[in-house]
């Protein structure tokens, strides 16, 4: 990358003329990959160049745009996945538009191939029926609330033993249960148990939440 014309406070410059965008691009490349300065100029460049990019109503437009931003960040200076940007050959917007249009074409071709497969597999009404959608519509696994309730019941004996000092009734099982939706407010629990909500909240944070978090982590989401 070559040396730059002149330096100025980047934050104050908000125009998106081709010259300004080219200046930002060159400025970004003066700093090393992964540096805060590089990332700052990239952010600015993305923000300003966007209104100069091709826009259409393709259902894949946003995906193509996401790939375009990745392409910009990876290839503006070093050329990690393609030839690096050359400011002498094209403006930043022209360079990105070429890539964006190719990605839109890719998505469109992939979608066509997909439609062709669906129609041949599912007959004449397959044109608008999404197979994935149809399969996902009959999940056998109960929602997470029920899975948490089952887990809580299975561990009830153990969780009842974990309680606020001198208050066996205020235990892990009880508090997790009460805080499941529709949850009882801390104030309501304070009134009911006669223990300050701060104590209850702190007990919940230390004893209940980590167990719940661990369960959720291991459980994950039902995949469709």
């Amino acid at each position, binding site marked *: 990358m070559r040396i730059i014309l002149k330096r100025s*406070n980047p934050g104050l410059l908000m125009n998106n003329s081709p010259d300004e965008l080219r200046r930002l691009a060159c400025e970004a490349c003066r700093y090393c990959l*992964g*540096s805060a300065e590089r990332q700052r100029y990239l*952010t600015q460049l993305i923000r300003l160049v966007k209104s100069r990019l091709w826009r259409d109503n393709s259902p894949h*437009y946003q*995906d193509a745009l996401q790939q375009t931003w990745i392409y910009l960040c990876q290839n503006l200076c070093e050329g990690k996945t393609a030839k690096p940007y050359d400011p002498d050959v094209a403006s930043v917007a022209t360079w990105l538009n070429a890539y964006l249009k190719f990605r839109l074409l890719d998505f469109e071709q992939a979608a066509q191939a997909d439609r062709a497969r669906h129609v041949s597999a599912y007959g004449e009404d397959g044109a608008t029926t999404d197979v994935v959608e149809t399969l996902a519509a009959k999940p056998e696994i109960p929602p*997470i609330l029920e899975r948490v309730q089952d887990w809580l019941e299975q561990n009830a004996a153990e969780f009842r*033993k*974990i309680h606020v000092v001198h208050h066996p009734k205020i235990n892990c099982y009880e508090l997790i249960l009460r805080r499941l939706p529709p949850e009882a407010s801390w104030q309501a629990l304070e009134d009911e148990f006669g223990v300050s909500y701060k104590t209850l909240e702190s007990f919940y944070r230390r*004893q209940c939440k980590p167990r719940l978090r661990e369960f959720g982590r291991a459980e994950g989401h039902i995949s469709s």
Partner: protein
Amino acid sequence: MTYSQSATDAARLIWPITQQGKRIAQQFARDHGLPDIAERVRRNTLAVWVLLEFLEALGILTDLATSDSWNPAMQLTEDVADLVVPGVGRLECRPVEEAGVCTVPLGVERIGYVAVALDEAAGEASLLGFVPEVALAQLGLDRLQPMDDFPTHLHQLRQGALGQEASQLTRLSRWLEGYFESGWQSAEDLLAQYLWTPAFRQGGQSAPQTPLQIKRAKQLDLGLKLGAEQVALVLEVEQENESAVNIGLRLYPLEGRLYLPEGLTVKILDGENTVCLTAQSRSADNYLQLYFRGHPGEPFSAQVTLGDVSIVENFII
């Protein structure tokens, strides 16, 4: 920063909402039977995903596996929209409601709050800006700093985290809540070569409750100071009851060595720097260990010494 700028239309960063993001948000939402929660989860997921795709385009990695926003049980019980940036901390990515209101959780540890306006009809989101910290549950959109400054904010935090590592205060009460300071990894990972035996024996049938035991290990970066000697400091923490925490501290050799260096000393000092406990390795010790008990909020430090070199780790229970 020498200039400031409000979140005007010019400063907002418009970012795509990808099909993958929509799919994940819908999948998460389907897991929640209650419509209000399903919608909350869907919008939070989109906000987190948009920020993730922005950060990943810039080359900043994120960790969804440890983000509560990706945990179905946490989504169910709390309004979570966090995103972990490894080595930096936990961000909050809040979707802005239609009236321009952005509500953030208080009393949680966050390294920044990003306001995300979702425009689902247009298939895109606006990253309106961020604030490093909040005092009120309502995020004032006029106080937001532009996203241009966001990478610098993250880098400063990372620098801070690196600089602090030596003198960092490790909070064991946070461990019991499932949060760990950087540098403390799972003991099994660091000491894969050892068969792990718990420091605390379960008191057989008389155990009044199953205590939550946390064990974490830190490689004491002694490379420069102690020549080739690398040791692992392992802490096992167990909440006995509301006012007492049991702590087990062990030192193990690392890098495939069988024995600790001879004469390695570990001391436990209280808040007044008074030595409470001490242990020293002999010629062929596999590990050193000390056990003690403290109250939540009580400070202590562990001093590891070999010859005239010493490393101190500071803790608060």
